[in-house]
Each structure stands twice: as C-alpha cells, then as structure tokens.
C-alpha cells in the first residue's frame, strides 16, 4: 500500500505541506478563502523542528491501526481504499484514538458546537497524489509503497 513516505534529510521546514493540506481540506479548496474567510481546517501533517533536523509527519495508516481499536463509536475506520479515516458524523471527540495512536499524529479539533472532532491524515481521497506530496518543493514527502 502507498503512504506518504518521509525523507527528513530533504526537509527544509518550509511548512508548505501544512499549507497544502489545509487548502485541500477547506470548503473551497482556495488558499485565500481557506486562510482568510472560511473556518480554517487543521493541517493533518505537522512540520517539526529541532535544529538541524526537521521533517513533516502524518498518519502511517497502520495495518493493525490501534486508533480503530480504541474508538468507542466506530468513527475511526478503514475506508474502501484501505486508509484509516474519521467519519465526522460519528466522532464524539473522546480522544481515545489519540490515547492509542503510537505515532502521535491525531489532532483535536474542539471548534464544533457539541462534539469534538478527531482530525488526521485521510490521504486526500479526492486526489491521485496527496496535496502535501505535491506541494513539497524538495521531495521530502513522497507517495510510495511501504
């Protein structure tokens, strides 16, 4: 299965992956609207830094996904493509998936009125090449087989 592979030696901590991810998951998929007018989505990848190291990390789409096992509502599930995604209409923001994810790549979105929303990489279901991979100027993220 292809996932986003991480090549840390090529990362220059430019955050373009995060920008692309935010735009891809926005209502309009337009960068200005996504950043200035709409509710800005949370980036599913995180560029992390500890000089001279930097890398962007996101869900590894585990075979034995512990996040699915821990989910109390079945919101966290494997889709038809085999990737691990959140069903927003089922998520109740209990953060049990966060408690279980061995990579620490699930984020809390606490902006919904009633239920929190677990937010993670969905491997861009509307695209052939993930947005972060396409946006990376240095091939520090590549869409490849693991």
């Amino acid at each position: 299965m292809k996932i986003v592979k991480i090549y840390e030696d090529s990362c220059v901590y430019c955050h373009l992956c995060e920008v692309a991810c935010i735009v891809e998951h926005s209502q309009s998929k337009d960068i200005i609207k996504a950043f200035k007018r709409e509710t800005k989505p949370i980036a599913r990848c995180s560029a992390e830094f500890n000089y001279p190291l930097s890398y962007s990390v996101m869900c590894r789409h585990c075979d034995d996904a512990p996040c699915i096992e821990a989910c109390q509502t079945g919101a966290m599930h494997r889709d038809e493509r085999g990737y691990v995604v959140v069903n927003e209409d089922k998520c109740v923001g209990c953060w049990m998936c966060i408690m279980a994810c061995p990579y620490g790549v699930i984020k809390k979105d606490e902006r919904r009125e009633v239920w929190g929303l677990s937010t993670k990489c969905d491997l861009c279901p509307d695209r052939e090449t993930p947005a972060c991979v396409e946006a990376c100027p240095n091939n520090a993220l590549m869409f490849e087989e693991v």
Partner: protein
Amino acid sequence: MKIVIIGNSVACINAIEAIREKDKISQIIAVSDEQSRAYSHPLLPNLVIGDISRSDERFYYRSRNFYEKNKVKTVLGKKVVGISSQNRYIKLENDEKISYDRLIITAGGKPFIPKMDGVELEGVHTLTNIKSADKLKKDLINIKKCVVVGGGLIGSKIAEKLAKHGVKVTLVELMKRVLFPVLDDTGAEYIHKELKSLGVKLILGDSVVKLDGNKRVKKAVLSSGKSIDTDAVIVSVGVKPNLEFINESGIEINRGIIVNDYMQTNIDTIYAAGDVTEAYDIVTSQKRPIPILPLAARQGRIAGLNIEGENVKYGGGFPTNSITIGKISFISMGIVDTDKLEILKIKKDGEYRKFIIDDNKLVGMILVGNIEKAGMFNWMIQNRFDVSWLKDTFLNSDFGWQYFSKAFRILRFDRKIK
C-alpha cells in the same frame, strides 16, 4: 463451523470482524440479553441527559446493516443461563438450546452493588447499559437533588452530566480523590475544580452506608454520620464480570474468566474476551480484569483470529483512559501513583505531565491538557521500550519524534518496526 458468541458488544463485534476477514462461510450467532444493536457504553451518561438520543447514529458502535453484511444471526433479548461444555450447547432462559462448535464469551460486566440497607428503594440507580440509562432518564423529572456513590469513571461522568443538566449533585467518594486509580493528587485537583465549578458538591474520604426512605429513597447516610437529603442515588462503585451462567460449565474463573494468551479458556473450544475476562496486565505482571473498551476490542479480535487458526498472541494489556470532565481533558495509563519508582513530573501553564519509570521502562503516565502525543507513550509501555536515553525529554511540552535517534525514527516512520 458454527460459532456462537455470548454478548453483542465491543468484544463480540471485533471477534465477528476478525472471523469474517478469514472466513466467509462459518455460521455466526450472536446472543445477547439486550435488544439493541451494539452501542457505545461510554455515551450512556450523555444518553441520560439527552445530549444524544437513540435515533442518533453516533450512539451505535456499528451501522445498522453490520450484521447482515457480515452474515451474523442475532438472538436478542435472550439471557444465556448455562453452558454445557461437554455437549457443546448454551442454554437460554426459555430453555432453548443453541449448539456450537466454538463459543466466545463476551458477556462484559455488571455494576457492583454494595450490601447496604435501602439499595432496593425506588430512585436508586446504576448506569451500565441502555436499560439502566432509560430508567434513570425517565426518573429525571423526579430528581432535583442526587447523590452519586463512587467517583470512578462512570460516577464522575454522570455527576458532571447531571450537574450540567441542572441537578444538585453530591458526589461521595471513599478515597481522598475522584478517579483514584487513574489520577494522582495533582491530576485529580484539576477534576475536583471542574466538578465544583459545575456545582457538584464533593465529599471525599467518606462513604454511603445506608439509604433511607419509605418507597422512594429520601436520604443517604454516610459512615461519618452525616446524612444527605436526596431524590435519587446513583451507585457507581465499580463493575464486575458477568459470571452467573458459567457455574457448572467447568470453565475456570477467578475474578473473571481466566484466559491464556490466545484468549482461550481452559476448555479448548471456548474463548472469552473483553470485560468478562481476567487477562494479563503487563504493567503489574498479574492476571486481572481491566474493563476498558480498547482491550475488549483487541481481545475480541484476537479470539476471532485464533478461532480461525491464526495463532495470534495477546501479549498483555494495561489500563488506558481518556477522559474529559468540564473543560479538562486528560489521558493516563498504567501505574499513575507510587512512591517506589522513578518519577518525572512537571506542572506548568495549562498542563501537567507525569511519567513513572521502572528500571528504564515506562510503566505509567498522566497527561493533563496537552494530550496529543499520548499514544507514543502507550507504545513505549506496551513494547517495554528502553527509555534511558529519551526520558529527559518527556517533560518537554513539545515532546515528539524529534527527540528520537535518527535511525530509529526512520525505521518507525517507514513502518519497519511495529
């Protein structure tokens, strides 16, 4: 093969999914004394106050068509009263028998009710299934004041929800803090504050010894001699495995059904998983029931796979909790309070971090506030990871992959090490 599963909840559903990954042919029958399709028990307090209703899909663990899709026959609203392991059948309360080739017991737990005068009075509730939630919900019109007995997970949650709903709640906890096994004093202080700000009155280090009233409960009497006027009492002092129907089956039990690493009981054809079992706790190195949802799911899956001949080992579990009370979210796991082991902790603006380390292995932790990396510590505990070179970074708010060695990080990112 004919596979019968007792219980129709988390462990059962995960067993079904595992079986169907390998085997589309075997017959599967799920038997439960509840009427509903599998649902989320942690949402019961929300159900009581009407945050969520039974017509909301969120409440259910799997979609309506799950059973059809997986070719599972359900027998609902029927209690299992016995097992004949020699003749391989289970017996229902109406004397009906269902034969099996393989049996999985996922009967979960039930509330522990302490022996005390007055527990049979009207207005005394528990909260572990839909039936008890419906009963409490219906009774809400009679409840202005309520005493919650026991400040564990269920007690703290229902106290919070009822207080938000406008009920005057008094929470009585025997120990010196709520959520005793999953928080230390510092961590519990956050929750005490939240509960108090919602108007919950906390009585700690005291216990309810007697309930008074004519037909309906009117008063709770404490061991200190205090007495509290109340319209209702919710008993939430713990759960224990459902074991009545095990009686003469020959299945070995202790506090729960004893299982080996393959989720198999002492009888080859019978497996057990979830809250009903007593499985290996890798942190305390003993077998004991750990009634939490993620372990019920894992054990159910393993039982299902092993019935299909996969030889998958459980490898042990430990308690993990993710709880939100009021505005505070925390995650804790393993051993959280001890003075015998190495402890690293820090309390700073909006967060509390604590780690318990035994001979350079992480055995427990608490994160309050900043919780997003919690699962990385879960992995370290589960895999008995040597943290000697890493532990100095645990207290950093930005703890993450940047603190690992490059070689290890790359292997993990590439999924070369599980």
